[in-house]
Every structure is written in structure tokens, then in C-alpha cells.
């Protein structure tokens, strides 16, 4: 993604080389996140150490807050809604990981498991627009055992699946979830 230009705006037309409104709340949010990290990892709550933490978090925020939440086309409220939709997806993903791991365990350990191994490369086109949503989809596909994203060419995902059952698992449910979380305006085609 180019610096400071969201892919959404890039898709809508060329007249949008401008930056977003300042949105100072992002800086504040980043400051809070860095400070929380400081507190958790130092574990010291004296006035001196907290003061040091505020100082350091302030400096880091001042210098490099542009690197986090690079895409600020959404306001902080929209972003919060996005984050609030995330946990239900994570729970679902964790359950998928459990199911798929059990499947892979069966494949690896049972005597007849190798019969079922018949690798294939599946290609499909994604409807997700933003780089970040695609990144999440690719990571999720790779996280669930049995399928690995090999590469993304344009809109097309190349996914290596270890067996027919694993390939059938790529039925678009995951993409639907991610579209629901990050891009509610995109209606993913139901499987």
C-alpha cells in the first residue's frame, strides 16, 4: 500500500491523491497502546517508572505513530466498530483451527491416513478489496492446517490444500467472516 493513500480511494478514482483529515485520536490511541505495553512488560508501578513509561511512549508516538494504522480513511469510531466485530471471528477461527488440527493429526498418525493425502492447488478470486483484509484472509487460511496460501496474484489466491476434504473447507465461509469484520459493504458471495 502506498503511504498515506488508501486503496479504497485509489480504486474510486485518480482525483484522490489527498491525505485524510488529521484524526488526532489515532495518535492518542497509539500512545495508550504503547503505554499499556510498557506497563505490562515492566511490571513496575512506581511513580518513577510510570513517568519514564509516559515519556518513552510519548517520544515513540511522536516519532513513529504514522506507521501504525497506516490507513486512516476510517474514523476512529468506525475503526472501533471494526475491532468490536473481531472477537467473534477469532473465536470461530480458533474453533476451525482445532477442527483442522485434529484432522491433520488423524492424517499423520492413523495407518490409512496417507491414503487420504492428495495435495492440490486451488485457485479462487477474492472479493476483499483492502490489502489488510486480504492479508488477514491469507493468514487465516494458512493458520488452519490443511491449507496454505502460496501466493496472491491480483485478485487470485493460490491455495495449496493437502487433501480433498481440506480443499472443500475453502468454501468461502472464512472470506464471508472477514468481509463482515473489515468490509461490511462487500457482500461476499454465499457458498
Amino acid at each position: 500500500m502506498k503511504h498515506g493513500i488508501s486503496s479504497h480511494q485509489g480504486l474510486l478514482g485518480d482525483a484522490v491523491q489527498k491525505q485524510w483529515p488529521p484524526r488526532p485520536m489515532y495518535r492518542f490511541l497509539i500512545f495508550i497502546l504503547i503505554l499499556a505495553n510498557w506497563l505490562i512488560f515492566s511490571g513496575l508501578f512506581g511513580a518513577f517508572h510510570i513517568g519514564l513509561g509516559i515519556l518513552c511512549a510519548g517520544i515513540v508516538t511522536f516519532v513513529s505513530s504514522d506507521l501504525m494504522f497506516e490507513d486512516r480513511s476510517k474514523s476512529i469510531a468506525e475503526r472501533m466498530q471494526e475491532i468490536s466485530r473481531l472477537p467473534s471471528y477469532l473465536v470461530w477461527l480458533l474453533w476451525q483451527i482445532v477442527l483442522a488440527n485434529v484432522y491433520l493429526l488423524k492424517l499423520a498418525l492413523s495407518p490409512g491416513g496417507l491414503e487420504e493425502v492428495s495435495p492440490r492447488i486451488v485457485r479462487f478470486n477474492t472479493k476483499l478489496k483492502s490489502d489488510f483484509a486480504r492479508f488477514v484472509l491469507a493468514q487465516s487460511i494458512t493458520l488452519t492446517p490443511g491449507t496454505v496460501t502460496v501466493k496472491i496474484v491480483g485478485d487470485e489466491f493460490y491455495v495449496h490444500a493437502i487433501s480433498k476434504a481440506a480443499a472443500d473447507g475453502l468454501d468461502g465461509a472464512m472470506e464471508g467472516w472477514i468481509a463482515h469484520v473489515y468490509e461490511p459493504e462487500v457482500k461476499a458471495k454465499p457458498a
Partner: protein
Amino acid sequence: MSLMINIVSGALILVGLTFFLAAAVGIVRFPDFYTRMHAAGKGDTLSTILILLGVALYTVGDFSIETLLVAIKIMAIAVFIMVTSPTSTHALMQAGYDDGIKPFEKEKEDKKDSEDQPEV
């Protein structure tokens, strides 16, 4: 109470190790580079989560702010692994694919039915 926690965390670690074992066996048994990457690269997602969860639970057994912080740090490791592990797997897979390693395929009929895979 602490006995309960010991048993539960022990069980979590044991289940995690079982998944690790499956991954290790998979590396040996699976037929080619790609399928072995399946086992090596992410047979460890669930097992790492389970083992770290067990360790974190064991740590908060005698509850205090400090042990809670340690547990949070341990779970942070799990989050890092969930981000980095697929990335490295993906990098290796793409390198192999671009390098022209032929994926292992089963018989003709299997191949045919991979061609009429439904879109998404």
C-alpha cells in the same frame, strides 16, 4: 484448588505435545515439500497455543499481579507465533512454488476432480 489447576494445565500441555508429535510424524510421512510444510509450518499452531495456555494457567496458580503479568506475557508469545508462523510458512511455500518444485499429485481421477473445484 491448586491441584485442580495443576491437573488442568498438565492436561493442556499433554494435548499440545500430542499435536506436536503428530506434526513431527507428518514431516516424516508426508510425500513432498508442500505437504511437509503443512505439517512442519503449522502443525504447531494449536499445540503452541495449548502448551503456552497450560504454562500460563500454571503460573497464575498462586494468583497475584505479578504472576498475572507473566501470564499475559506468555499469551503475548502465543499471539506473536500466530502472526509469524503463517508468514514464514507462506514465504517458504512461495519460494518453492516460484522455484518450480512440482507438487506431488495422486492419480488421474484425483487430478480431474481438483480441476472442477467449485469457485470459492
